[in-house]
């Protein structure tokens, strides 16, 4: 009887602890979602953390203290990044200016390309209905490019806070990862402790693998595109390679979006179309034959419908950045739901 009373009291305490723990998590999420730049800064910080953690773990294995290893890897990483930016920025800036100057010609060229296709389709299906796609496409491109070039400086200045906050958060996430994780786990009620610890470890592992694999995949694709376009002396090789690398982060439709600008430029210039298609196809071939089976296959897989829905939601919430962030976020939600489900089914007796 005495044990029964004690157990009822314990259950009440456990419920209260669980409520406090969940309230803390919800409060954290509210802060992340409502405070400006906080969500993006944290997401970028996690990307940095997962990218650099293998190097820091390696240094730690060699006997370097974690705090020293973190500082060393950070200095090395930002030196390399600064050097790359210092080297690539003049090229990108020149190509960006040239592209801006040539933009009206490309918009007009795209319009006439769509117009030609439209006329051929009308001839084939012999309809009197006017699609007028070319005019709509021209308007769309004008609005889009105008907003990109006009908003770019504004976007960069706004991103400055995020670009400063993200490495700051990442540094402490890496240096004190164990302490932070232990402090958070201290708040978990006893009856959920092993479950939450196991879940946190699983999510951490899967997200790390996912982010590292995707970044490696995007970098390799970007490098192949850059090398290929540079060899055939195609204009805007730096810009197009950067675009291909970034869009490659979006599964399924990303590689197609990444190739479109180069194909349009080749068609309008009337030169190098086959070579451009060849380069992009080669990059995807390498991706499919080597990178995906070796690196990406083990990581979480999303159904194409999930990918499209995630991208639409991401774009609605945060624009272009939201599109890029949507896939890792969707993967994280999928891993969490899968793990919670697995634990709920298997963990309890």
């Amino acid at each position, binding site marked *: 009887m005495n044990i029964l009373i004690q157990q009822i009291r314990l259950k009440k305490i456990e419920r209260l602890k669980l409520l406090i723990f969940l309230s803390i998590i919800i409060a954290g999420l509210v802060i992340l979602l409502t405070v400006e730049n906080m969500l993006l800064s944290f997401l970028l910080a996690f990307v940095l953390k997962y990218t650099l953690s293998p190097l820091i773990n390696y240094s730690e294995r060699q006997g370097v203290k974690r705090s020293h290893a973190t500082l060393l890897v950070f200095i090395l990483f930002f030196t390399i990044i600064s050097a790359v930016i210092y080297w690539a920025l003049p090229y990108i800036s020149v190509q960006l200016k040239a592209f801006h100057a040539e933009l009206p010609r490309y918009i007009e060229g795209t319009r006439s390309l769509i117009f030609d296709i439209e006329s051929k389709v009308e001839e084939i299906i012999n309809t009197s209905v006017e699609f007028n796609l070319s005019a709509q496409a021209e308007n769309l491109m004008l609005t889009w490019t105008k907003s990109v070039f006009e908003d770019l400086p504004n976007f960069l200045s706004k991103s400055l806070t995020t670009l400063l906050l993200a490495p700051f958060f990442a540094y402490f996430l890496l240096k004190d990862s*164990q302490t932070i994780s232990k402090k958070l786990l201290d708040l978990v009620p006893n009856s959920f402790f092993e479950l939450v*610890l196991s879940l946190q*470890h699983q999510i951490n592992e899967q997200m790390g693998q996912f982010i590292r694999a995707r970044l490696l995949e995007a970098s390799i694709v970007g490098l192949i595109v850059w090398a290929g376009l540079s060899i055939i002396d195609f204009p805007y090789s730096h810009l197009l390679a950067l675009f291909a690398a970034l869009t490659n982060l979006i599964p399924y439709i990303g590689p197609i979006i990444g190739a479109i600008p180069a194909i349009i430029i080749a068609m309008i210039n009337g030169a190098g179309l086959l070579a451009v298609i060849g380069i992009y196809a080669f990059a995807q071939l390498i991706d499919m034959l080597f990178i995906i089976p070796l690196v990406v296959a083990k990581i979480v897989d999303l159904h194409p419908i999930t990918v499209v829905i995630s991208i639409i939601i991401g774009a609605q919430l945060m624009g272009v950045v939201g599109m890029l962030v949507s896939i890792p976020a969707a993967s994280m939600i999928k891993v969490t739901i899968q793990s919670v489900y697995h634990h709920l089914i298997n963990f309890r007796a």
Partner: protein
Amino acid sequence: MINYLWENLFKKREDIALKILSGNILFQDLNSSELKIVSDFLHLRHYRPAELIFRQNEIGVGMYIILKGRVDILIESDEASKTDNEDFITRLEEGDFMGELSLIEENSRRTASARAINETTVLGFFQPDLKNLLQSHPEIGSRVLLRLSQVLGRRLSETATKITELKKQIKIIKA
């Protein structure tokens, strides 16, 4: 003053933890600085009287070392489906450890329940912690793993002996 008291209190608890760790078979090969590294991977948990530390048949992910208090190891009795009866197996005290099989076996289910008798403090060491220790300090991790294998090997040998004994007894009874 408060800081001084707090630091001393905290230091004392840390010293007790390190002392108990050094006496534990899994960590007995480690020196004090290595024990300090290992202790950073462990989780300090507090349990109230009658609180379950783990429950029989649940999936377990690690082991517990008792720092303070006493713990009863119980298994569900045959009549457990009807009532809430549990059979007492043994009582563990300060320095004892339990659940070490779960540190190695994937999705292992607890073969018994552990219930705190009085206010109990334990150090939890779980699979993710062992993996992290092996990743960041492979030398320390492998020494812990070696000792853990020895403990599990001994348990296996004890179980095999018991099974042989039981088989002999069954033969005698049948004869």
